[in-house]
């Protein structure tokens, strides 16, 4: 059974429609990507799933439960952990406070993420534990955002623009971290522009244009489809 099923959702900002029958499915333990040029609806898809910009029509089910019209805090509670675009670290909380303020283990994970485990994953955060959120570099902020989401012990981790604006070495560290999370069986939905890294990391891919899926397949199929990469991703 799918962990997350998104079926034919339409989402609007005011009167302008952004998603036109968007579809998406993720199985437990899978790493799935969402690709497409800017403004095609990747972030809106994630906002719809999270209940931040609710979809007007269609179905969104998580572990069989209808979550389309739930407020975002209830969506988070059923087990979705968001690493948002622009990181959105709380600037007036320390690194440690950012991690523990919203921490929870609502679904009774047997080996829950704790502060200790997160700083083991990102040792840089331990060095910065007492710094305020707005004193961090972009890479540190992204590590913190990933750690903050993990501390809610989600069934599905969602990353919007996982490595945007980061230095190459930091990117590598984020990709390695996601690889390690995948090894532990963490399901992940990731948006990014780095097709190479995504092809190595993920099981399956969705390419979207103008608010709908125009191509989907596994990494092998994506490698074998240079025309798709050229036409929809601009590479």
């Amino acid at each position, binding site marked *: 059974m799918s962990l997350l099923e998104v079926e034919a959702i339409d989402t609007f900002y005011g009167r302008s429609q952004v998603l036109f029958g968007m579809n998406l499915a993720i199985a437990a333990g899978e790493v799935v990507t969402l690709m497409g040029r800017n403004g095609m609806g990747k972030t809106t898809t994630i906002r719809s799933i999270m209940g931040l910009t609710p979809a007007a029509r269609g179905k969104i089910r998580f572990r069989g439960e209808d979550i389309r019209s739930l407020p975002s805090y209830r969506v988070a509670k059923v087990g979705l952990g968001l690493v948002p675009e622009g990181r959105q670290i709380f600037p007036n909380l320390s690194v440690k406070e950012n991690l523990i*303020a919203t921490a929870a283990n609502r679904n009774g994970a047997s080996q829950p993420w704790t502060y200790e485990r997160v700083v083991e994953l990102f040792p840089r955060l331990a060095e910065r534990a007492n710094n305020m959120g707005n004193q961090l570099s972009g890479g540190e902020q992204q590590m913190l955002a990933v750690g903050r989401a993990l501390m809610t012990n989600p069934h599905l981790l969602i990353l919007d623009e996982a490595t945007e604006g980061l230095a190459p070495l930091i990117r590598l560290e984020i990709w390695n971290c996601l690889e390690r999370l995948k090894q532990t069986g963490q399901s992940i939905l990731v948006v990014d522009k780095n097709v190479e890294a995504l092809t190595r990391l993920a099981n399956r891919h969705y390419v979207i244009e103008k608010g709908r899926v125009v191509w989907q397949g596994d990494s092998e199929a994506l490698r074998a489809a240079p025309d798709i990469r050229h036409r929809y991703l601009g590479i």
Partner: protein
Amino acid sequence: MLLLLFEQFLNGLQIGLLLFLLAAGLTLVFGIMDLVNLAHGSLYMMGAYFAAVFTQWTGNFFLGALLALPAGALLGIVVEVIALRTLYTRDHLDQVLATFGLILFFNEFARVVFGAGGMAIELPSWLEGQVMVMPGLPYPSFRFLIIVVGLACAGFLYLLVQKTRLGMLIRAGASNREMVGALGIDIKLLFTLVFGLGSALAALAGLMSGPITTVQIGMGDNILILALVVIVIGGIGSIRGAFIAAIAIGVIDTMGRAFLPNMLGTVLNPSDAGTLAQALSSMLIYILMAAVLVLRPAGLFPAPGR
């Protein structure tokens, strides 16, 4: 002279701490939910009335105060759930109009229920006397108690906001409400709790000023203006800013009224000095606010992310 100065400082501190209790709730509500709540002064008034009624009923000021605090918190929660929730998404003008309506409602409500005459709160006899705060300086016991309680509340709020998870969520909510929700926190519930806490603090301020001024209709209206000045100077959403600004305003206002006439009297003739001092001392805090707004438009300690 030094004793007089110190006594006036204590008076200013006492008024400042009352202001702080009122401003703390106001600044949290404004900071987190972006809601301008003019009716906060009504919660102050209702707290005083609750204390007056409960004190008459139990015959003991402390029992009365102890009952008035949860009553004030409960009233705040009811007001929030019934009236204010619908206002969060509206613009500030709508909020001002609606909560101004609440002021009129509560003033009329008090007139109908408690009568137009106002009520006195009777203190126990041991609080009617004076304590020696230092050799040669007796100070009214009850005013001294207000200072102690006010400082204790400030300490409690500091610990709550800086050291607890609830406090972290309050601060996080002040900087990025949407993200707090997306991480699984029911921000509406959080806000109702914060509002209840703010109402209890307003009620505490009201019931402590009741024995000094008598409890009357509209008693919250003037002090609300001062509390708004406090949160503008301190920075909206900042407890620390509210604390510092409230004490500064209390002390400056009191000192100005006490010493300006004499100071001006040394350079002007007495009647001019008196007139000018009266005018100046009532303007001092607004001059301070204007200066702060020019130099730091977001206040002294703005909450980040706003």
